C-alpha cells in the first residue's frame, strides 16, 4: 500500500481548474512566503533551504543549499531557472509551469532574495507555448502587484525576472549548454573545469542554475521551515518529489510522493497512483529515472523511491520519470528509439558521442528492422564501452557533458537483461513482434 499522507508541497492546487491564476494563488496562501522571506535576513532564508536539505530536482540531485553557499561569500550576478525539461518521459516541470506558474515565480523571487540577485531568467523549452504564456502572465501579475520590480512589497529588495524561450534542443537542459543558449549561441556544453556556473556562469559571471521543481518547493519551505521539509522522507532524500509515471500503466501521470516512503511497486500498482498494468499483462522492465538511467526489472520493484536507494542498485532517480514496459512491448524497439533520440540530440562536439550515438542507432535499427547480425551484440557493447569505458555506474566520461555516457545505459541494460530477445531478432531477421 502506498503511503499518501504527506502534505502536497508543490502540487497542492492540482485539483483546482484555475490553479494558474493570480486570484486563486492569493486565495490559497500565495505570496505569504515571500512576505515572510523579505522580513528575514537573506542568509537566514538560505539557511532554511540548507536545513531542508533540498536536493536539486533536475536530475543530478545536487543539494540546492550547497549550490547557493558556493556563492555566498562573493557577489552573485544571476539566477537562472532551468525549465528546459526534455528528458524523455519526464513531464513534471511541464505540469508546474502550466498549472502553478505563480508558485514557480514566488520561489524564484525568494531564491533571488536569498542570493541577493537582481536579475533572474526562467529558461523554458520553446515547445511549452502555453507554459510560456502562463509564466509571463504570472510575471505580469507579480509586477502589477508589487511582487516584482523596484522595492518589492516596500522592502529594499528589487528584482527583474525575464522568461526566456528555448528552441528545441535536449542538450540545453545541461546547465552550461543552457547558459550558452541564453547568451544567444548554439547550445554547446562548456568544457569543465570550472565545473560549476557558480564560479563562471552567464557572461562569465557567478550564476546559480536551479530546476523549476526545486524553485517551486521554496514557498512551502519558507512558510513551514526547513526542518519540516527535512522531516519528510529519509536519509539524504528529504521532502516530497514529483514523479512522472509513463508507459504501459493504466493511469500515467504526475504524482507527488514523500521521498523514500513509497516503492516503485507502489507507484506503478497502487490504484490511487499508476493503477497497474493492462488486464493480462505483466511487467517486463521499467526505467527508474529517465532514459539516461539503467533499467530495472520486476526484482527491483520494492526499491524505495529515494536517491541513494536507487543509486545503490546501480541506477538513478534522475529526472523523476518512470517508464513502464509490459511483456507485450519490444525492448529492442524501445532501445532503438532511445538511441535514435540520443543520436538526434548529440550536439556534435565530442567524437565518442557524435559518432557513437549514430553508430549504435544504426546497429539497433537493423536489429529491429531486419539485417541484424549475431556479432552486432558484441559490437554494441564495444561501442558502449568506447563511450563510457568499463560500462560502470556512474559511468566513466569521455565527453564534455553527460549526454554521451547516458547513451550506453539503455543498450547495456537491455542486452544484459534480455539478450534472448536480441538473439530472436537476429534469427527472425527483424522484430518477431512486428
Amino acid at each position, binding site marked *: 500500500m502506498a503511503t499518501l499522507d504527506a502534505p502536497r508541497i508543490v502540487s497542492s492546487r492540482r485539483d483546482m481548474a484555475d490553479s494558474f491564476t493570480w486570484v486563486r494563488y492569493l486565495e490559497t496562501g500565495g505570496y505569504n512566503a515571500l512576505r515572510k522571506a523579505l522580513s528575514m535576513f537573506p542568509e537566514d532564508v538560505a539557511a532554511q533551504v540548507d536545513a531542508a536539505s533540498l536536493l536539486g530536482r533536475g536530475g543530478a540531485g545536487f543539494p540546492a543549499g550547497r549550490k547557493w553557499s558556493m556563492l555566498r561569500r562573493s557577489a552573485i550576478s544571476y539566477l537562472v531557472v532551468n525549465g528546459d525539461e526534455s528528458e524523455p518521459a519526464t513531464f513534471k516541470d511541464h505540469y508546474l509551469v502550466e498549472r502553478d506558474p505563480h508558485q514557480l515565480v514566488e520561489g524564484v523571487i525568494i531564491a533571488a532574495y536569498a542570493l541577493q540577485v537582481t536579475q533572474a531568467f526562467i529558461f523554458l523549452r520553446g*515547445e511549452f507555448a502555453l507554459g510560456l504564456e502562463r509564466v509571463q502572465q504570472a510575471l505580469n501579475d507579480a509586477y502589477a502587484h508589487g511582487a516584482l520590480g523596484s522595492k518589492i512589497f516596500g522592502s529594499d529588495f528589487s528584482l*527583474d525576472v525575464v522568461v526566456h524561450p528555448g528552441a528545441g534542443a535536449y542538450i540545453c537542459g545541461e546547465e552550461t549548454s543552457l547558459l550558452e543558449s541564453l547568451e544567444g549561441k548554439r547550445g554547446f556544453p562548456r568544457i569543465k573545469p570550472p565545473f560549476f556556473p557558480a564560479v563562471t556562469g552567464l557572461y562569465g559571471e557567478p550564476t546559480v542554475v536551479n530546476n523549476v521543481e526545486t524553485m517551486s518547493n521554496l514557498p512551502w519551505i519558507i512558510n513551514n521551515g526547513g526542518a519540516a521539509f527535512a522531516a519528510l522522507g529519509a536519509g539524504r532524500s528529504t521532502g516530497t518529489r514529483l514523479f512522472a509515471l509513463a508507459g504501459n500503466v493504466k493511469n500515467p501521470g504526475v504524482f507527488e510522493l514523500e521521498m523514500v516512503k513509497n516503492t516503485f511497486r507502489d507507484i506503478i500498482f497502487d490504484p490511487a497512483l499508476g493503477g497497474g498494468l493492462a488486464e493480462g499483462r505483466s511487467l517486463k522492465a521499467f526505467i527508474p529515472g529517465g532514459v539516461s538511467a539503467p533499467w530495472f526489472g520486476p526484482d527491483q520493484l520494492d526499491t524505495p523511491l529515494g536517491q541513494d536507494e536507487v543509486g545503490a542498485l546501480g541506477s538513478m532517480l534522475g529526472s523523476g520519470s518512470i517508464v513502464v514496459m509490459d511483456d507485450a512491448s519490444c525492448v529492442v524497439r524501445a532501445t532503438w528509439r532511445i538511441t535514435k533520440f540520443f543520436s538526434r540530440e548529440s550536439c556534435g562536439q565530442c567524437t565518442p558521442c557524435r559518432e557513437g550515438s549514430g553508430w549504435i542507432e544504426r546497429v539497433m535499427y537493423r536489429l529491429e528492422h531486419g539485417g541484424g547480425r549475431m556479432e552486432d551484440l558484441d559490437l554494441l557493447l564495444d561501442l558502449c564501452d568506447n563511450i563510457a569505458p568499463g560500462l560502470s555506474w556512474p559511468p566513466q566520461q569521455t565527453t564534455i557533458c553527460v549526454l554521451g555516457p547516458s547513451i550506453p545505459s539503455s543498450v547495456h541494460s537491455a542486452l544484459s537483461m534480455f539478450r534472448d530477445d536480441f538473439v530472436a531478432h537476429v534469427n527472425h531477421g527483424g522484430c518477431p513482434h512486428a
Partner: protein
Amino acid sequence: MSHFRTDIRQRAEELVALYPRKRSAMLPLLHLAQEHDGYLSDEGIAEVAALTDTTPADVRGTASFYDMFHLEPVGQYVVGVCTNIACLLAGGEELLEHASRTLDCAVGATSSDEMFTLEETECLADCNLAPCVQVNHRYVRTTTPASFDAMIADLRDGRLDHEVPSHGTLIRVKRQGGLRVAKDEIAAERAQALAARTARADAAAAAAAAQEKK
C-alpha cells in the same frame, strides 16, 4: 528600413532591452522572425543580425542548431507527432504513419497545398496523454487515428483558430513593460546588502570568539 512589421519591430526592440547583452535576445528574436515570415527568411535573419550586433552567417549558424527554427518555408500548420519512448509504447509510430497518409506527405515534408508540415518530434513532455501531438507547438490532445483526422478537418475549416495560432511560439507571450530596476540602483542596492551581510557575519564571528574566550 525594417523588414518587420511595426508591431513586430517594436516587440523585437523591447526584447533586446530585457537582456544585459543584445545577443542573448537571439532565440526570442528568431521566434519573432518566424512568426513574421512563417520561417527564417534571409530578410528576417538579416534583421535579427542587425538587432543583435552579429552577422547573418552567425545567426543562421545559431538557428540551424535548434529544431524549432525552420530555415525553409513550412506549411501554415507544423504538425509534430512524438515517437519517443512513452509515445512509442502507446502507438506513436503508428500514429505518425497514419498522419503521413492523412496529410499525404512524407515525414519532414510539406503537403502539396502547403497547409501542413509533418514532423517526427522528440519527447514533448506530455506523456500521460501519449501519443502526443502538437500543432504549431500547441498540444492538441489527440491520440487515435480517428481523432487525429477530426483534428485535421477542424484545422482545415478554421475551427481551431482560437487554440492554434499560426506560426509563432511567442505570439501570445506579452510582457507588460520592460525591466523596472535601474542598473545604478542594482549596483547601489547590492553593495549595500553585501556590506550589511558582511557586517552581520563579522559580528556573529566576533560573538562566537568572545564566547570561546569565556
